[in-house]
């Protein structure tokens, strides 16, 4: 089986994306973060470095909660998407 990118993987899943993000980042806190564990910990790669700056996209979120626990700077305001929104697993 050939390797897949994260985008290809996420494309397999069903999502009903809420227009209102369920995770908010205080990017001013991230500017001072040296290790950025969120870059490794997010299995959906929602956190990305672009030209040295952190960017965040909530659409592919798998709702695992890893970033909530790994970010020790208090930069993440975390909740689940509103009822009915977000990822829907067919198998689980």
């Amino acid at each position: 089986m050939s390797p897949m990118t994260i985008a290809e993987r996420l494309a397999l899943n069903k999502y009903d994306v809420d227009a209102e993000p369920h995770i908010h980042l205080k990017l001013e806190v991230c500017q001072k973060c040296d290790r950025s564990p969120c870059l490794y910990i997010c299995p959906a790669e929602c956190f990305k470095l672009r030209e040295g700056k952190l960017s965040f996209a909530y659409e592919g979120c798998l709702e695992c909660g890893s970033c909530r626990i790994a970010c020790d700077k208090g930069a993440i305001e975390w909740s689940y998407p509103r009822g009915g929104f977000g990822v829907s697993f067919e198998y689980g």
Partner: protein
Amino acid sequence: MDDVFDAIVVGAGPAGCAAAYRLAKEGLQVLVVERGKFAGSKNVTGGVLYGPVMNELIPSFSAEAPVERRIMHHVITLLSEKSSLSIDYNAGDSEKHNGFSVLRSRFDRWFARKVEEAGGIVATGLRADDLLWQDGRVAGIVAGGDNIAGRVVIAADGVNSLLAEKAGLGVKLSPDNVNQGVKEIIKLPPETIEERFNLSGESGTAIHFLGFCTQGVHGGGFLYTNRESLSLGVVVQLKTLVEHNLKGVDLLEGFKSHPTVRELVKGGTTVEYSAHLVPAGGLSMVPRLYTDGLLVVGDAAALVLATGRALEGINFALESGMAAAETVKRAKGKNDFTKQTLSVYEQLLAQSFVLQDLKTFQKSAQFLENARLYGVYPELACRLAERIFEVDGKPKKKAWQIMREEMKGKVSIWQMIRDAISAKGAT
């Protein structure tokens, strides 16, 4: 029906459904709220449903529920970079098997339907946003902008229990006491699965991997057979991922392309990618389990057994859900939902396998911190096997001698003995 529910259950996973099913059967007014579009749509597990607990709740379940295969084969596989060594337990054709592979999206949906058949109300697509308080006690929830009153709330909202947190009973999740699982569902025809894994009919296999699947860091891999698919995943401690700058998905790819695993998944098509956390700190991370008007069950209370053999959470979730239901039933009988009455819950858990197993294995979490378990030992075992099976035309050495040679520079005899002693105390 008056406008106060006897119990409001938040979350339609196994913990919530077990509690709600029992309560509904007893004739209590019970409401389950589930944030997923349907029950199970948010849930991910390995997953093998172990043991007879489900049978106690719904005796006919194995005929009715969408279970995948009866697990008749349990395999432990140690991986080095290129090779592997397996210990294979086959229950043969005895009737004794100890679990079913399940796909949670299907299983939980079925379970929630059973709750409804028993008279409970299951409201899906509804997220509990907050607890409702009255005179210092929990008196219901806030969901979808409405206040919903309940005599007691059962927090069955899983590992990131934001609800229990709001009542100060939340588990203190930290990178060292929680593991991340990343998982793929790989489609294969049932005949291929049966042929490849030596299965007949409904039987299935559960393989646990240790070693190269996590590149030698804290965690393990799994491969479980479903009817028409394989569940393949790795579970790794969050702290380790961060410390080693590793990504779960890269470990999963590496695991999948290991020569041993590659053969097992060959020709398959990935149809789903998922991730979920699992509490892994054992007894020491279990929070206070109840307060006035509130009980915490399942993963929300970190009631998961992680011994390094397998991950057991579903049966713990079920059992704690049933204990919560029994507690609420008694509280209803006295019309008293204060913490004094609800303390029965903890007593029931202490009498059951839930707290007893967590106590028996309370040293596991610490033992599993030992990096040699994931690196040196699997590597050593594979090398040892390689050299024992090797016929190279030279005079043979005894296994013990080979072992001494292979251990050199990697682990001392004393270290190994010390590890064996702590394994005895912990696993």
